[in-house]
Protein backbone atom coordinates (compact mmCIF):
# COMPACT_ATOMS: atom_id res chain seq x y z
CA UNK A 1 0.00 0.00 0.00
CA UNK A 2 1.14 3.53 -0.51
CA UNK A 3 1.76 5.70 2.51
CA UNK A 4 2.67 4.98 6.11
CA UNK A 5 1.39 1.92 7.90
CA UNK A 6 2.74 1.78 11.44
CA UNK A 7 1.95 -0.33 14.46
CA UNK A 8 4.28 0.93 17.15
CA UNK A 9 4.66 -1.01 20.38
CA UNK A 10 7.40 -0.34 22.87
CA UNK A 11 8.24 0.07 26.53
CA UNK A 12 10.55 2.85 27.58
CA UNK A 13 10.82 3.63 31.28
CA UNK A 14 7.30 4.37 32.53
CA UNK A 15 5.95 4.64 29.02
CA UNK A 16 3.98 1.76 27.54
CA UNK A 17 3.30 2.78 23.95
CA UNK A 18 0.93 0.96 21.61
CA UNK A 19 -0.14 3.16 18.74
CA UNK A 20 -1.28 2.39 15.20
CA UNK A 21 -0.86 5.09 12.66
CA UNK A 22 -1.89 5.13 9.02
CA UNK A 23 -1.32 8.04 6.69
CA UNK A 24 -1.74 8.21 2.93
CA UNK A 25 0.38 10.02 0.39
CA UNK A 26 -0.51 13.71 0.28
CA UNK A 27 -2.24 13.53 3.64
CA UNK A 28 -1.31 15.38 6.84
CA UNK A 29 -2.01 13.40 9.99
CA UNK A 30 -1.65 15.14 13.33
CA UNK A 31 -0.75 13.07 16.37
CA UNK A 32 -2.22 15.14 19.13
CA UNK A 33 -1.89 14.49 22.81
CA UNK A 34 -0.86 15.95 26.14
CA UNK A 35 2.83 16.17 27.04
CA UNK A 36 4.25 12.83 28.09
CA UNK A 37 1.72 10.81 26.09
CA UNK A 38 4.47 9.16 24.04
CA UNK A 39 4.14 11.24 20.89
CA UNK A 40 7.83 12.10 20.54
CA UNK A 41 8.79 8.48 21.18
CA UNK A 42 6.42 7.42 18.40
CA UNK A 43 8.08 9.89 16.01
CA UNK A 44 11.52 8.63 17.02
CA UNK A 45 10.49 5.06 16.26
CA UNK A 46 9.20 6.05 12.81
CA UNK A 47 12.50 7.84 12.12
CA UNK A 48 14.50 4.79 13.25
CA UNK A 49 16.00 6.52 16.28
CA UNK A 50 14.16 4.17 18.65
CA UNK A 51 13.64 0.55 17.59
CA UNK A 52 10.21 -0.85 18.45
CA UNK A 53 9.68 -3.90 20.68
CA UNK A 54 6.69 -5.22 18.82
CA UNK A 55 4.52 -4.20 15.89
CA UNK A 56 5.59 -3.25 12.40
CA UNK A 57 6.43 -0.07 10.51
CA UNK A 58 6.24 0.09 6.73
CA UNK A 59 6.34 2.96 4.27
CA UNK A 60 5.06 2.67 0.70
CA UNK A 61 5.17 -1.13 1.07
CA UNK A 62 8.78 -1.31 2.31
CA UNK A 63 9.22 -2.68 5.83
CA UNK A 64 11.34 -0.36 8.01
CA UNK A 65 11.04 -2.06 11.39
CA UNK A 66 9.62 -5.48 12.22
CA UNK A 67 10.97 -7.19 15.35
CA UNK A 68 9.20 -10.44 14.40
CA UNK A 69 11.41 -10.83 11.32
CA UNK A 70 14.34 -8.91 12.84
CA UNK A 71 14.06 -6.28 10.13
CA UNK A 72 15.41 -2.87 11.06
CA UNK A 73 16.37 -0.13 8.62
CA UNK A 74 18.84 2.37 10.17
CA UNK A 75 17.70 6.01 10.30
CA UNK A 76 20.26 7.09 7.68
CA UNK A 77 18.71 4.64 5.20
CA UNK A 78 15.07 5.60 5.72
CA UNK A 79 13.43 7.94 3.20
CA UNK A 80 12.21 10.14 6.02
CA UNK A 81 12.72 13.83 6.73
CA UNK A 82 12.31 15.12 10.27
CA UNK A 83 11.67 18.63 11.56
CA UNK A 84 12.63 18.37 15.21
CA UNK A 85 11.37 20.17 18.25
CA UNK A 86 13.71 23.21 18.71
CA UNK A 87 14.60 22.60 15.02
CA UNK A 88 18.11 21.34 15.96
CA UNK A 89 19.89 23.29 13.24
CA UNK A 90 23.61 22.51 13.46
CA UNK A 91 24.89 25.57 15.33
CA UNK A 92 28.35 25.70 13.75
CA UNK A 93 27.09 25.55 10.16
CA UNK A 94 25.51 28.22 8.00
CA UNK A 95 21.88 27.88 6.88
CA UNK A 96 23.17 26.72 3.51
CA UNK A 97 25.43 24.04 5.02
CA UNK A 98 22.54 22.84 7.18
CA UNK A 99 20.34 22.32 4.14
CA UNK A 100 23.21 20.83 2.11
CA UNK A 101 24.15 18.41 4.93
CA UNK A 102 21.68 15.69 3.96
CA UNK A 103 22.50 15.96 0.27
CA UNK A 104 26.23 15.59 0.95
CA UNK A 105 25.65 12.77 3.43
CA UNK A 106 23.71 10.96 0.71
CA UNK A 107 26.59 11.27 -1.71
CA UNK A 108 26.17 14.49 -3.68
CA UNK A 109 29.40 16.39 -4.29
CA UNK A 110 29.77 19.73 -2.61
CA UNK A 111 29.03 21.93 -5.61
CA UNK A 112 25.84 20.09 -6.53
CA UNK A 113 24.66 19.93 -2.90
CA UNK A 114 25.25 23.66 -2.43
CA UNK A 115 23.40 24.46 -5.64
CA UNK A 116 20.37 22.45 -4.58
CA UNK A 117 20.45 23.78 -1.03
CA UNK A 118 20.51 27.31 -2.38
CA UNK A 119 17.46 26.67 -4.51
CA UNK A 120 15.64 25.27 -1.44
CA UNK A 121 16.51 28.38 0.55
CA UNK A 122 15.29 30.56 -2.33
CA UNK A 123 12.04 28.64 -2.47
CA UNK A 124 11.49 29.29 1.25
CA UNK A 125 12.37 32.97 0.90
CA UNK A 126 15.70 32.59 2.69
CA UNK A 127 18.05 33.34 -0.21
CA UNK A 128 19.54 36.29 1.68
CA UNK A 129 20.24 34.20 4.77
CA UNK A 130 22.28 31.40 3.19
CA UNK A 131 25.43 32.36 5.09
CA UNK A 132 23.71 33.09 8.40
CA UNK A 133 24.40 30.92 11.43
CA UNK A 134 21.29 29.47 13.11
CA UNK A 135 21.75 31.76 16.12
CA UNK A 136 21.26 34.77 13.84
CA UNK A 137 17.93 33.53 12.45
CA UNK A 138 14.49 34.40 13.83
CA UNK A 139 12.21 31.62 15.04
CA UNK A 140 10.27 31.62 11.80
CA UNK A 141 13.39 31.62 9.62
CA UNK A 142 14.94 28.81 11.65
CA UNK A 143 11.77 26.79 11.19
CA UNK A 144 11.90 27.29 7.42
CA UNK A 145 15.56 26.22 7.32
CA UNK A 146 14.65 23.12 9.34
CA UNK A 147 11.86 22.34 6.89
CA UNK A 148 14.10 22.95 3.86
CA UNK A 149 16.77 20.72 5.39
CA UNK A 150 14.25 17.91 5.95
CA UNK A 151 12.73 18.21 2.46
CA UNK A 152 16.02 18.61 0.56
CA UNK A 153 16.74 14.86 0.65
CA UNK A 154 13.43 14.22 -1.12
CA UNK A 155 11.82 12.04 1.57
CA UNK A 156 8.64 10.00 1.19
CA UNK A 157 7.57 10.80 4.74
CA UNK A 158 7.91 14.11 6.53
CA UNK A 159 7.79 14.02 10.34
CA UNK A 160 7.26 17.23 12.27
CA UNK A 161 7.81 16.98 16.03
CA UNK A 162 6.28 20.00 17.77
CA UNK A 163 7.65 22.27 15.05
CA UNK A 164 6.07 25.38 16.55
CA UNK A 165 6.72 24.88 20.25
CA UNK A 166 10.05 26.74 20.20
CA UNK A 167 8.31 29.94 19.09
CA UNK A 168 6.71 32.63 21.20
CA UNK A 169 2.97 33.14 20.95
CA UNK A 170 3.02 36.04 18.49
CA UNK A 171 5.37 34.56 15.91
CA UNK A 172 3.66 31.20 16.29
CA UNK A 173 0.56 32.31 14.47
CA UNK A 174 2.54 33.69 11.53
CA UNK A 175 4.79 30.67 11.28
CA UNK A 176 1.86 28.27 11.57
CA UNK A 177 0.20 29.90 8.56
CA UNK A 178 3.51 29.72 6.68
CA UNK A 179 3.96 26.08 7.57
CA UNK A 180 0.48 25.29 6.30
CA UNK A 181 1.41 26.88 3.01
CA UNK A 182 4.73 25.00 2.68
CA UNK A 183 3.29 21.64 3.76
CA UNK A 184 0.84 21.75 0.89
CA UNK A 185 3.78 21.87 -1.56
CA UNK A 186 5.17 18.54 -0.27
CA UNK A 187 3.35 15.59 -1.82
CA UNK A 188 4.57 12.73 0.39
CA UNK A 189 3.13 11.54 3.70
CA UNK A 190 3.07 14.16 6.45
CA UNK A 191 2.90 13.33 10.14
CA UNK A 192 2.73 16.18 12.61
CA UNK A 193 3.13 15.70 16.35
CA UNK A 194 1.82 18.41 18.60
CA UNK A 195 0.21 19.11 21.94
CA UNK A 196 -1.42 22.27 20.59
CA UNK A 197 -4.95 21.69 19.28
CA UNK A 198 -4.74 24.78 17.07
CA UNK A 199 -1.71 23.35 15.26
CA UNK A 200 -3.62 20.14 14.69
CA UNK A 201 -6.89 21.74 13.62
CA UNK A 202 -5.22 24.17 11.25
CA UNK A 203 -2.60 21.89 9.69
CA UNK A 204 -4.04 18.37 9.62
CA UNK A 205 -6.47 16.47 7.44
CA UNK A 206 -6.88 13.82 10.10
CA UNK A 207 -6.26 13.68 13.83
CA UNK A 208 -4.94 10.80 15.92
CA UNK A 209 -5.38 11.52 19.60
CA UNK A 210 -2.84 9.78 21.84
CA UNK A 211 -3.17 9.70 25.62
CA UNK A 212 -1.05 7.62 28.01
CA UNK A 213 0.51 5.69 25.11
CA UNK A 214 -2.81 4.68 23.51
CA UNK A 215 -4.87 6.06 20.65
CA UNK A 216 -8.10 7.35 22.15
CA UNK A 217 -9.71 8.79 19.04
CA UNK A 218 -9.13 9.29 15.32
CA UNK A 219 -11.01 11.20 12.67
CA UNK A 220 -11.16 14.41 10.71
CA UNK A 221 -10.99 17.62 12.75
CA UNK A 222 -14.72 18.06 12.23
CA UNK A 223 -15.51 14.52 13.40
CA UNK A 224 -13.31 14.76 16.46
CA UNK A 225 -14.61 18.14 17.53
CA UNK A 226 -18.20 17.05 16.99
CA UNK A 227 -17.89 13.94 19.18
CA UNK A 228 -15.01 14.23 21.63
CA UNK A 229 -14.30 10.82 23.14
CA UNK A 230 -12.38 11.86 26.26
CA UNK A 231 -12.18 14.91 28.54
CA UNK A 232 -8.85 15.80 26.93
CA UNK A 233 -10.46 15.82 23.51
CA UNK A 234 -13.40 17.73 24.93
CA UNK A 235 -10.97 20.53 25.74
CA UNK A 236 -10.18 20.75 22.03
CA UNK A 237 -13.82 21.31 21.19
CA UNK A 238 -13.74 24.46 23.19
CA UNK A 239 -11.65 26.25 20.64
CA UNK A 240 -13.85 28.79 18.97
CA UNK A 241 -13.54 28.77 15.20
CA UNK A 242 -15.27 31.65 13.41
CA UNK A 243 -15.26 32.50 9.74
CA UNK A 244 -15.10 35.85 8.04
CA UNK A 245 -13.15 38.12 5.82
CA UNK A 246 -9.91 39.90 6.69
CA UNK A 247 -9.56 43.52 5.57
CA UNK A 248 -6.29 45.40 5.08
CA UNK A 249 -6.76 47.36 8.33
CA UNK A 250 -6.44 44.17 10.45
CA UNK A 251 -10.15 43.84 11.06
CA UNK A 252 -12.07 40.65 10.41
CA UNK A 253 -15.69 41.04 9.32
CA UNK A 254 -17.35 37.90 10.60
CA UNK A 255 -20.01 36.15 8.56
CA UNK A 256 -22.37 36.90 11.46
CA UNK A 257 -21.95 40.63 10.91
CA UNK A 258 -19.70 41.47 13.85
CA UNK A 259 -16.17 42.86 13.53
CA UNK A 260 -13.01 41.77 15.39
CA UNK A 261 -9.67 43.57 15.47
CA UNK A 262 -6.73 41.19 15.08
CA UNK A 263 -2.97 41.59 15.50
CA UNK A 264 -2.26 41.15 11.82
CA UNK A 265 -0.01 38.51 10.47
CA UNK A 266 0.84 36.41 7.49
CA UNK A 267 -2.73 35.64 6.49
CA UNK A 268 -3.66 37.39 3.24
CA UNK A 269 -6.75 39.56 3.13
CA UNK A 270 -9.88 37.71 2.08
CA UNK A 271 -11.60 34.66 3.52
CA UNK A 272 -10.14 33.62 6.86
CA UNK A 273 -10.78 31.40 9.84
CA UNK A 274 -10.39 32.89 13.29
CA UNK A 275 -9.47 30.77 16.33
CA UNK A 276 -9.99 32.00 19.88
CA UNK A 277 -9.21 29.92 22.96
CA UNK A 278 -12.01 29.90 25.55
CA UNK A 279 -9.59 31.00 28.28
CA UNK A 280 -8.56 34.06 26.26
CA UNK A 281 -12.07 35.51 26.60
CA UNK A 282 -12.66 37.66 29.68
CA UNK A 283 -16.18 38.26 31.04
CA UNK A 284 -17.44 41.28 32.99
CA UNK A 285 -20.77 42.38 34.50
CA UNK A 286 -20.18 46.03 33.56
CA UNK A 287 -18.48 47.44 30.50
CA UNK A 288 -14.76 47.19 31.37
CA UNK A 289 -12.90 50.48 31.75
CA UNK A 290 -10.03 51.23 29.35
CA UNK A 291 -11.56 48.50 27.33
CA UNK A 292 -9.67 46.51 24.67
CA UNK A 293 -10.87 47.08 21.13
CA UNK A 294 -12.67 43.74 20.99
CA UNK A 295 -15.34 44.35 23.62
CA UNK A 296 -18.95 43.49 23.11
CA UNK A 297 -22.04 42.68 25.09
CA UNK A 298 -23.87 39.40 24.70
CA UNK A 299 -26.44 37.27 26.49
CA UNK A 300 -25.47 33.99 28.15
CA UNK A 301 -26.89 31.24 25.93
CA UNK A 302 -25.66 28.36 28.02
CA UNK A 303 -23.73 27.71 31.19
CA UNK A 304 -22.09 24.35 31.74
CA UNK A 305 -19.87 23.02 34.50
CA UNK A 306 -16.80 21.10 33.33
CA UNK A 307 -14.89 19.76 36.33
CA UNK A 308 -13.46 22.80 38.17
CA UNK A 309 -14.34 25.19 35.38
CA UNK A 310 -17.39 26.65 33.74
CA UNK A 311 -17.97 27.01 30.04
CA UNK A 312 -20.06 30.04 29.25
CA UNK A 313 -21.58 30.06 25.76
CA UNK A 314 -22.48 33.51 24.52
CA UNK A 315 -25.23 34.38 22.07
CA UNK A 316 -25.23 37.45 19.87
CA UNK A 317 -23.07 38.36 16.90
CA UNK A 318 -19.86 36.73 18.20
CA UNK A 319 -20.92 33.18 19.05
CA UNK A 320 -18.11 31.95 21.27
CA UNK A 321 -17.62 29.89 24.39
CA UNK A 322 -15.59 31.31 27.25
CA UNK A 323 -14.04 29.27 30.00
CA UNK A 324 -13.82 30.68 33.52
CA UNK A 325 -13.23 29.30 36.99
CA UNK A 326 -16.04 28.30 39.28
CA UNK A 327 -14.97 31.08 41.64
CA UNK A 328 -15.50 33.76 39.03
CA UNK A 329 -18.90 32.31 38.17
CA UNK A 330 -19.93 32.94 41.76
CA UNK A 331 -18.24 36.35 41.75
CA UNK A 332 -20.11 37.40 38.64
CA UNK A 333 -23.35 35.78 39.79
CA UNK A 334 -24.01 34.31 36.37
CA UNK A 335 -27.22 32.78 35.05
CA UNK A 336 -28.51 31.99 31.56
CA UNK A 337 -30.11 34.88 29.71
CA UNK A 338 -28.12 37.48 31.60
CA UNK A 339 -26.31 40.16 29.57
CA UNK A 340 -22.53 40.23 30.00
CA UNK A 341 -19.56 42.11 28.58
CA UNK A 342 -16.93 40.01 26.88
CA UNK A 343 -13.50 41.04 25.66
CA UNK A 344 -10.55 39.45 23.95
CA UNK A 345 -7.17 40.92 23.10
CA UNK A 346 -6.23 41.23 19.43
CA UNK A 347 -3.03 39.18 20.02
CA UNK A 348 -5.10 36.28 21.40
CA UNK A 349 -6.92 35.87 18.09
CA UNK A 350 -5.28 33.56 15.56
CA UNK A 351 -6.13 34.19 11.91
CA UNK A 352 -5.72 31.70 9.06
CA UNK A 353 -6.36 31.64 5.39
CA UNK A 354 -9.64 29.71 5.08
Amino acid at each position, binding site marked *: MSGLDADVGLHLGDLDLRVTLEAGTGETVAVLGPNGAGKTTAV*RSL*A*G*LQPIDHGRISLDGAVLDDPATETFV*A*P*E*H*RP*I*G*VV*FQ*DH*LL*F*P*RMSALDNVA*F*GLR*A*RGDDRRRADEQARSWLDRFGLGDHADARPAALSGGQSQRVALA*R*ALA*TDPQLLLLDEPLSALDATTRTHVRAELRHHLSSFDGVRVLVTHDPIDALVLADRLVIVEHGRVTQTGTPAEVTARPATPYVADLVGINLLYGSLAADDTVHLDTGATLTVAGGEAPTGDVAVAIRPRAIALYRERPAGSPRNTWSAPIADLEADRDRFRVTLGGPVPVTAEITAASVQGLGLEPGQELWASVKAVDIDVYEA
Partner: protein
Amino acid sequence: MSRRRRPPRTPWVLLPFAVAAVAFIALPLVGLLQRAPWSDLGDLVTEPVVTDALRLSIVSAFAATGISVLVGVPLAWVLARTSFRGRSLVRALVTLPIFLPPVVGGASLLFAFGRRGLVGEPVYEATGLLLPFSIWGVIAANTFVAMPFLIITVESGLRAADDRYEDAAATLGAGRWTVFRRITLPNAMPAVLAGALLCWARALGEFGATVTFAGNLQGRTQTMPLAVFLALESNREAAIALSLVLIAVSLAVLVPLRDRWLR
Protein backbone atom coordinates in the same frame (compact mmCIF):
# COMPACT_ATOMS: atom_id res chain seq x y z
CA MET B 1 21.91 37.45 23.33
CA SER B 2 23.59 39.91 25.64
CA ARG B 3 23.35 39.34 29.34
CA ARG B 4 23.76 42.29 31.62
CA ARG B 5 25.87 41.40 34.55
CA ARG B 6 24.85 42.90 37.85
CA PRO B 7 27.67 44.14 40.07
CA PRO B 8 28.75 41.30 42.36
CA ARG B 9 27.67 41.40 46.00
CA THR B 10 31.01 40.39 47.44
CA PRO B 11 30.95 38.41 50.70
CA TRP B 12 33.95 40.27 52.18
CA VAL B 13 35.07 37.38 54.37
CA LEU B 14 36.17 35.53 51.21
CA LEU B 15 38.65 38.20 50.22
CA PRO B 16 41.56 37.46 52.60
CA PHE B 17 41.42 33.79 51.61
CA ALA B 18 41.45 34.67 47.92
CA VAL B 19 44.40 37.00 48.45
CA ALA B 20 46.24 34.30 50.40
CA ALA B 21 45.74 31.86 47.51
CA VAL B 22 47.15 34.30 44.97
CA ALA B 23 50.08 35.17 47.24
CA PHE B 24 50.96 31.53 47.81
CA ILE B 25 51.22 30.94 44.08
CA ALA B 26 52.83 34.28 43.21
CA LEU B 27 55.49 34.42 45.95
CA PRO B 28 57.62 31.49 44.75
CA LEU B 29 57.65 33.02 41.29
CA VAL B 30 58.73 36.34 42.76
CA GLY B 31 61.46 34.50 44.68
CA LEU B 32 62.67 32.96 41.45
CA LEU B 33 62.68 36.28 39.60
CA GLN B 34 64.47 38.03 42.46
CA ARG B 35 67.30 35.46 42.39
CA ALA B 36 67.54 35.41 38.60
CA PRO B 37 71.03 36.11 37.22
CA TRP B 38 69.69 38.65 34.71
CA SER B 39 73.11 39.72 33.36
CA ASP B 40 74.26 36.17 32.55
CA LEU B 41 70.84 34.99 31.43
CA GLY B 42 71.60 35.26 27.72
CA ASP B 43 74.64 32.99 28.00
CA LEU B 44 72.95 30.55 30.38
CA VAL B 45 69.90 29.86 28.24
CA THR B 46 71.94 29.27 25.09
CA GLU B 47 74.08 26.56 26.69
CA PRO B 48 73.59 23.12 25.10
CA VAL B 49 72.27 21.64 28.35
CA VAL B 50 69.40 24.17 28.23
CA THR B 51 68.67 24.08 24.50
CA ASP B 52 68.80 20.25 24.41
CA ALA B 53 66.40 19.99 27.32
CA LEU B 54 64.05 22.62 25.91
CA ARG B 55 63.89 20.94 22.51
CA LEU B 56 63.30 17.55 24.09
CA SER B 57 60.62 18.89 26.42
CA ILE B 58 58.68 20.67 23.70
CA VAL B 59 58.90 17.80 21.20
CA SER B 60 57.89 15.16 23.74
CA ALA B 61 55.05 17.25 25.21
CA PHE B 62 53.55 17.84 21.75
CA ALA B 63 54.06 14.20 20.76
CA ALA B 64 52.40 12.98 23.97
CA THR B 65 49.49 15.37 23.37
CA GLY B 66 49.14 14.17 19.77
CA ILE B 67 49.06 10.52 20.83
CA SER B 68 46.62 11.31 23.63
CA VAL B 69 44.22 13.05 21.23
CA LEU B 70 44.51 10.20 18.74
CA VAL B 71 43.59 7.43 21.17
CA GLY B 72 42.07 9.41 24.07
CA VAL B 73 39.24 11.04 22.13
CA PRO B 74 37.94 7.68 20.85
CA LEU B 75 38.16 6.26 24.37
CA ALA B 76 36.32 9.30 25.77
CA TRP B 77 33.57 8.73 23.20
CA VAL B 78 33.25 5.08 24.21
CA LEU B 79 33.07 6.03 27.90
CA ALA B 80 30.55 8.81 27.30
CA ARG B 81 28.20 7.23 24.77
CA THR B 82 28.17 3.48 25.27
CA SER B 83 27.41 1.28 28.21
CA PHE B 84 29.06 -2.05 28.72
CA ARG B 85 29.96 -4.27 31.64
CA GLY B 86 33.06 -3.00 33.35
CA ARG B 87 32.76 0.56 32.05
CA SER B 88 33.27 2.04 35.50
CA LEU B 89 36.31 -0.18 35.94
CA VAL B 90 37.79 1.13 32.67
CA ARG B 91 37.03 4.69 33.72
CA ALA B 92 38.74 4.18 37.09
CA LEU B 93 41.71 2.55 35.37
CA VAL B 94 42.33 5.35 32.88
CA THR B 95 42.10 8.05 35.56
CA LEU B 96 44.45 6.13 37.86
CA PRO B 97 47.64 7.86 36.59
CA ILE B 98 46.26 11.15 37.93
CA PHE B 99 46.28 9.74 41.46
CA LEU B 100 49.32 7.51 41.15
CA PRO B 101 52.74 8.91 42.18
CA PRO B 102 54.53 9.39 38.81
CA VAL B 103 57.50 7.35 40.07
CA VAL B 104 55.19 4.37 40.47
CA GLY B 105 53.92 5.03 36.95
CA GLY B 106 57.49 5.05 35.64
CA ALA B 107 58.28 1.78 37.43
CA SER B 108 55.12 0.18 36.01
CA LEU B 109 56.09 1.31 32.52
CA LEU B 110 59.47 -0.31 33.07
CA PHE B 111 57.86 -3.65 34.01
CA ALA B 112 55.64 -3.50 30.92
CA PHE B 113 57.82 -1.92 28.25
CA GLY B 114 61.35 -2.25 29.67
CA ARG B 115 63.97 -4.56 28.21
CA ARG B 116 62.79 -7.38 30.51
CA GLY B 117 59.17 -6.17 30.49
CA LEU B 118 55.97 -7.99 29.73
CA VAL B 119 55.67 -6.46 26.26
CA GLY B 120 59.12 -4.93 26.00
CA GLU B 121 61.07 -8.20 26.02
CA PRO B 122 59.34 -9.95 23.07
CA VAL B 123 59.28 -6.70 21.11
CA TYR B 124 63.00 -6.14 21.76
CA GLU B 125 63.87 -9.68 20.74
CA ALA B 126 61.82 -9.46 17.57
CA THR B 127 62.71 -5.96 16.40
CA GLY B 128 65.50 -4.56 18.56
CA LEU B 129 63.26 -1.65 19.57
CA LEU B 130 63.66 -0.36 23.09
CA LEU B 131 61.60 2.37 24.73
CA PRO B 132 63.61 3.21 27.87
CA PHE B 133 66.54 5.61 27.64
CA SER B 134 65.30 7.11 24.36
CA ILE B 135 63.02 9.98 23.40
CA TRP B 136 60.30 7.34 22.83
CA GLY B 137 60.55 6.49 26.49
CA VAL B 138 60.10 10.16 27.41
CA ILE B 139 57.04 10.38 25.17
CA ALA B 140 55.62 7.16 26.64
CA ALA B 141 56.09 8.44 30.20
CA ASN B 142 54.53 11.80 29.30
CA THR B 143 51.56 10.15 27.62
CA PHE B 144 50.99 7.82 30.56
CA VAL B 145 50.66 10.61 33.12
CA ALA B 146 49.05 13.27 30.89
CA MET B 147 46.46 11.44 28.78
CA PRO B 148 43.95 10.95 31.64
CA PHE B 149 43.49 14.74 31.81
CA LEU B 150 42.46 14.76 28.17
CA ILE B 151 40.19 11.74 28.53
CA ILE B 152 38.18 13.06 31.48
CA THR B 153 37.86 16.53 29.95
CA VAL B 154 36.64 15.22 26.60
CA GLU B 155 34.34 12.67 28.23
CA SER B 156 32.57 15.32 30.28
CA GLY B 157 32.41 17.56 27.20
CA LEU B 158 30.72 14.78 25.24
CA ARG B 159 28.28 14.13 28.08
CA ALA B 160 27.34 17.80 28.21
CA ALA B 161 26.79 18.00 24.42
CA ASP B 162 23.23 17.68 23.11
CA ASP B 163 23.18 14.31 21.34
CA ARG B 164 19.90 15.12 19.58
CA TYR B 165 22.01 16.86 16.91
CA GLU B 166 23.46 13.44 16.13
CA ASP B 167 19.92 12.06 15.73
CA ALA B 168 19.12 14.92 13.36
CA ALA B 169 22.23 14.14 11.30
CA ALA B 170 21.30 10.44 11.14
CA THR B 171 17.81 11.22 9.82
CA LEU B 172 19.48 13.31 7.10
CA GLY B 173 21.33 10.23 5.87
CA ALA B 174 24.64 10.55 7.71
CA GLY B 175 26.30 7.27 8.67
CA ARG B 176 28.00 6.83 12.04
CA TRP B 177 31.43 8.00 10.93
CA THR B 178 30.00 11.08 9.19
CA VAL B 179 27.96 11.90 12.30
CA PHE B 180 31.08 11.66 14.46
CA ARG B 181 33.25 13.66 12.09
CA ARG B 182 30.82 16.44 11.20
CA ILE B 183 28.63 16.75 14.30
CA THR B 184 30.01 15.05 17.43
CA LEU B 185 33.61 16.19 17.08
CA PRO B 186 32.91 19.83 16.13
CA ASN B 187 30.42 20.09 19.02
CA ALA B 188 33.00 18.65 21.42
CA MET B 189 35.88 20.72 20.02
CA PRO B 190 36.08 23.16 22.97
CA ALA B 191 36.45 20.20 25.33
CA VAL B 192 39.03 18.55 23.08
CA LEU B 193 41.11 21.73 22.97
CA ALA B 194 40.82 22.28 26.72
CA GLY B 195 41.76 18.65 27.34
CA ALA B 196 44.70 18.87 24.94
CA LEU B 197 45.93 21.99 26.71
CA LEU B 198 45.76 20.36 30.16
CA CYS B 199 47.44 17.28 28.75
CA TRP B 200 50.23 19.33 27.17
CA ALA B 201 50.83 21.29 30.37
CA ARG B 202 51.01 18.10 32.43
CA ALA B 203 53.38 16.48 29.92
CA LEU B 204 55.66 19.52 29.86
CA GLY B 205 56.12 19.35 33.63
CA GLU B 206 56.51 15.57 33.86
CA PHE B 207 59.37 14.45 36.10
CA GLY B 208 58.90 11.28 38.12
CA ALA B 209 57.75 8.82 35.48
CA THR B 210 60.26 10.17 32.96
CA VAL B 211 63.29 9.88 35.22
CA THR B 212 62.27 6.38 36.33
CA PHE B 213 61.41 5.00 32.89
CA ALA B 214 63.55 6.99 30.45
CA GLY B 215 66.47 8.03 32.62
CA ASN B 216 68.29 11.35 32.70
CA LEU B 217 70.62 11.52 29.69
CA GLN B 218 71.37 14.98 28.37
CA GLY B 219 70.29 15.35 24.75
CA ARG B 220 68.38 12.05 24.78
CA THR B 221 65.99 11.91 27.72
CA GLN B 222 66.83 14.91 29.88
CA THR B 223 63.78 17.21 29.73
CA MET B 224 63.58 20.65 31.33
CA PRO B 225 62.28 19.52 34.75
CA LEU B 226 65.06 16.91 34.94
CA ALA B 227 67.67 19.46 33.94
CA VAL B 228 66.37 21.89 36.58
CA PHE B 229 66.56 19.25 39.30
CA LEU B 230 70.09 18.28 38.33
CA ALA B 231 71.27 21.88 38.03
CA LEU B 232 69.94 22.73 41.49
CA GLU B 233 72.68 20.44 42.91
CA SER B 234 75.55 21.87 40.87
CA ASN B 235 74.73 25.23 39.28
CA ARG B 236 71.95 27.15 41.00
CA GLU B 237 71.98 29.99 38.49
CA ALA B 238 71.55 27.61 35.58
CA ALA B 239 68.63 26.00 37.45
CA ILE B 240 66.96 29.39 37.79
CA ALA B 241 67.55 30.20 34.13
CA LEU B 242 66.06 26.85 33.10
CA SER B 243 63.04 27.49 35.31
CA LEU B 244 62.50 30.92 33.79
CA VAL B 245 62.57 29.44 30.30
CA LEU B 246 60.02 26.80 31.34
CA ILE B 247 57.76 29.45 32.86
CA ALA B 248 58.05 31.60 29.73
CA VAL B 249 57.10 28.69 27.47
CA SER B 250 54.12 27.78 29.68
CA LEU B 251 52.86 31.35 29.80
CA ALA B 252 53.27 31.74 26.05
CA VAL B 253 50.91 28.81 25.53
CA LEU B 254 48.56 29.35 28.47
CA VAL B 255 47.83 33.07 28.41
CA PRO B 256 46.20 33.22 24.98
CA LEU B 257 44.22 30.00 25.58
CA ARG B 258 43.30 29.99 29.25
CA ASP B 259 40.25 32.24 29.10
CA ARG B 260 38.94 30.73 25.94
CA TRP B 261 39.01 27.04 26.76
CA LEU B 262 39.62 26.46 30.42
CA ARG B 263 36.62 27.55 32.42
